[in-house]
């Protein structure tokens, strides 16, 4: 089972047009960009064939790992909790 299939069983409420994570790929170094694709438990950071970074906020499990990994580059990744009633709602946890 791939991670997209796993995420499909979770309960999310996406705050359309108001992402709680905003990425500025141009500020990143190569090593940190690569790290983001590896550390995200939901696999939301991906690169296309040309190496361009893509990020999908829907499916975020709100762990904060990307925040920690990007913290050494000021302003590269804005991370906040989703607004109340949005984001993932764990039914088991």
């Amino acid at each position, binding site marked *: 089972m*791939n991670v997209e299939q796993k995420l499909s069983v*979770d309960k999310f409420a996406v705050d359309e047009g108001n992402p709680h994570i905003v990425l500025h790929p141009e500020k990143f170094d190569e090593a940190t960009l690569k*790290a983001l694709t*590896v550390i995200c*438990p939901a696999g939301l950071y991906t690169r296309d064939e040309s190496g361009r970074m893509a990020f999908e906020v829907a499916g975020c*499990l709100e762990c904060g*790992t990307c925040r920690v*990994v990007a913290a050494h580059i000021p302003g590269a990744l804005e991370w906040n909790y989703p607004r109340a009633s949005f984001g993932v709602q764990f039914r*088991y946890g």
Partner: protein
Amino acid sequence: MADYDAIVVGAGLAGSTAAYCMAKAGLSVLVIERGNTAGAKNVTGGRLYAHSLEDVFPGFADEAPVERKIVRERVSMMTDDSCFTADFHSSRFNEPHSASYTVLRAEFDAWLAAKAEEAGCDVVCPGNADELILDNGKVAGIRSGEDELTSDVVLLADGVNSLLGQKAGLKKELAPNHVAVGCKEVVELPRGVINDRFGLNDAEGMAHLFAGAPSNGMVGGGFLYTNKESVCVGLVVTVSDLVKSSARLPDLMEKFRESAPLKPLLAGGKLVEYSAHLVPEGGLHMLPTLSDDHVLLLGDAAGLCLNLGYTVRGMDYAVASGQLAAQTVIEAREKADYSNAVLKGYKDRLEQSFVLKDMRTHKNAPEFIEHTSRMFNEYPELVADVFTQMFKVDGSPSRLFLKKALPLVSRAGIFNLIKDGFKATRAL
């Protein structure tokens, strides 16, 4: 005059315990929680060691939604093609204070938050605590959207990421070598299947930790916990190691759950949730400033977790920090002094309790685990080689076991083994 004596940010185990204890002592308390229900943003492996909650709610397990009482402990060393397991089954953990239970946070935290509400706390749920209100540079409440809520003291129990703890200047940004990221699947299985598969009676549970192949030799490991009608299976890896990995965390997780030792344990199960969480693992080295004027830091927000490889603890420390924070705030109210002159008594209480005593005893554990990578790659291989030599019969002339095993041990380095063994005795 402030709206409340105390505002608690986060209705996890630390926050709700603190809120309950303060309300019981007659304080006016507001709890604000960002999940739709308490626990909806929380994840555990997970096992709760009962002792500290037992102190607050004697006999809690009779009414709280615990899953199973753990009577069986397993620790495995895995390579890609082998798995060595120590299996300890015992009724010696039956006393309320030495018991531990598997729990699922959505249900468990909701129970604890309801206790706080019954005790008289106001609960805003869901609600965000966006900012701290400052009055002459001192914390005076929280801002939630358009609303301002004021209090004499704010207890930050807002979890490992504690954005407010950072804004209050109590803690620095988390360092990648001080946190691990975990992901977890909840896999539904019939109760009887779990009992049969893991050799358990109805209310009995098992905790199983795995070192080696699951984390691909990185600092970390796999886990499996049995609930009433599901098992939790997951993988935790230290972030500073994971950033160097070529394999993605979700792919390592899938490889682990599909591995030969795991797959039959999960067969026929239905995935009902996939979750992830950050775990503070820096111990004493990441201890933040625990209090300032009108503000305290609790639980994961204060980094109160301890991973020794064979025990993983955080929730019992969270509960204790909640209770001790409440005692401190109650004293502050009696003295009508919420300055750090009184609130620093919270750290003293933690120092006198098992919480910071444990952190001090094991202050070298995080560094030992981080710098002894052999634990996660070479030693599982060594164990696999030794047992292969022991059990393999292929018709070639047999040799004394010692003659078979010694070259393997030499290869790993007898000096390394002695050195790591010695360091382990001083750290774990």
